């Protein structure tokens, strides 16, 4: 299972089984389809490092998903 924490969002954290091998982009696309919501632009962080869409998700990963905004 992978745990996704949606930061600065009303969404609760979700746990989702990973289909190996599966990229982050594919996993989030699946989440988006299953929940019927659009994620928009995001920054994903795994263990303090940015995770790119093409990177493979591992079982037991905890991933923080932030809306990709900027300062002012």
């Amino acid at each position, binding site marked *: 299972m992978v745990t996704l924490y949606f*930061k*600065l969002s009303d969404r609760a954290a979700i746990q989702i089984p990973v289909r190996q091998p599966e990229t982050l982009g594919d996993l989030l696309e699946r989440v988006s389809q299953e929940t019927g919501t*659009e*994620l*928009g*632009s995001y*920054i994903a*962080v795994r263990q*303090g490092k*940015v995770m*790119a869409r093409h990177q493979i998700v591992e079982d037991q990963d905890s991933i*923080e998903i*932030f*809306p*990709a*905004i*900027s*300062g*002012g």
Partner: protein
Amino acid sequence: MFSILKINTVTGETTKETDNSKEALLGGRTLSSRMVSKEVPAQCDPLGRQNKLFFCSGALAGTTASSCHRLSIGAKSPLTGGIKESNAGGILALRMAHQNLRCIVLEDAPEPDRDWKIVVIGKDKTELVDGSFLEGKGVYEKSDLLTEKFGKRAGCATIGPAAEKRLLASGLACSDPHGVCSRYAGRGGLGAVMASKRIIAMVVLDDAKVKPDYADKDEFKKGARKLITLLQENPVASKFTKYGTAAMVDICQALKVLPTRNFKHGAMDGAEKINAQAMYDTIKERGGEGRTQHACMPGCVIQCSNVYPKKDGTILCSPIEYETMALMGSNLCLTDLDAIAMMNRIANDAGVDTLDCGAAIGVAMEAGLAEFGDAKAAVRMMEEIREATPLGRILGSGVKLTAKILGVSHSPHVLGQALPAYEPRGTKGMAMTYLSTPMGADHTFGFTLRDEEDPTTKEGKVALSKKFQVIGSRMDAMGMCNFARYSVKDDMNPLLDLIKARFDVVITEEEFDDFVRETLRLEHQFNTDAGITAADYRFCESFYQEAQPETGEKIDITDQETAEARSW
């Protein structure tokens, strides 16, 4: 078609010119940087007679389009020694549009002992009137006195006591929709430039209502509605509505680029005490005059601003932005939102840039003038700036000068302007932008962080920074709020269609970006002519020699790479 009002601050004489060029049509930074390049000798004294101060409204000012009333203010900067454009929200650009003015220019400078004057611009005349009653007062009191004298609906720009003392980090405070001078063009010392002309405030009266003469009113209405839909439906822009820019605290903490302990670290224990959720909850809990969302300019649907209340619900400070929360918070190891808000309020009252002063206090703490985490000492230092004590004058002149005087080598700036709130060793894209803007370190100039797949590598960052320098400059180029860019990043036509409907002038996407790149080229040429060299576009040595503990990264960007990023 577009009027430029020039005011001689020595004689009070005024001239009005018209300019029908597309550059004047676009206004904003497109116009201000061209006028600085054309009319200000690059090697002049920024606080001398030859410097000029330009106030430019944007292409859609005066219309009902959302987020279109940013005011671009340009001059040679006393802080960086190069060209400067600093922009602010508020109502001044709208009032200029009502007076049919695209640009106001303050020229020349009287003897430094001349009485302070206020420039008053109305539909029938422009005059210099006595401003000595404002001398020495904080911006909040000045704001009240200006409202009392000229009405709540007048558009004002004023300076604080820091600018009166010509401190290099002093800004210009512009009227918000409630008549309070709280919207800052904070960066680059432009307050000191206005003070050097012995102008303590500029007021554009609400006595004219020149309505936009739309080429196609129905098309404009349709386009304005489309823009609102784009802004409201964009998931990024909608996050700004709820949390404002404060949402960046968590993101930067997670990426380990949250400036901490005078930019020595990229993460802070207790960051959750000053994050967007903490601020949102505090504002909601205290209620009263507090607001989690607030429009800084009329008709803006993003409403990213906020009003932070005291415990009793009365206003403490508005707005508090992420950059301030970081530079006056985590950078000083402060985890007390009330202390940060108080520092912000004092900065607004003194009329200084919260970034440069926050960074300067960080340096002062490293020098041993106070302990990191000592909120009382940090607030006291801000009070010293407002009171213009000897230490306050040093801090209020920015981080570079403060570091030199206090003997601190880790001085977070580029071209003398403090680094914004992204620790550069952990984000090489932002580092590249800091090193390649003509304005000194500036995050808005090319915000790469959200698009960096691996922030810690410099690979590909020249191209990425340049891409976002164009994207970031597009909004400044026509007086739009920078946060509208998310909705038109891949397609500028919704805005260009509004220009067509407003003026019956076609500007293609390619032509528009040509204007943007030409502006960048002119700005860099100005800096070169001013004597700024490649050696000035660097961080201090410690950023290259000492690894940031959380990421293990140093700055590894070469002069050649930054030169490429400055090449247009």
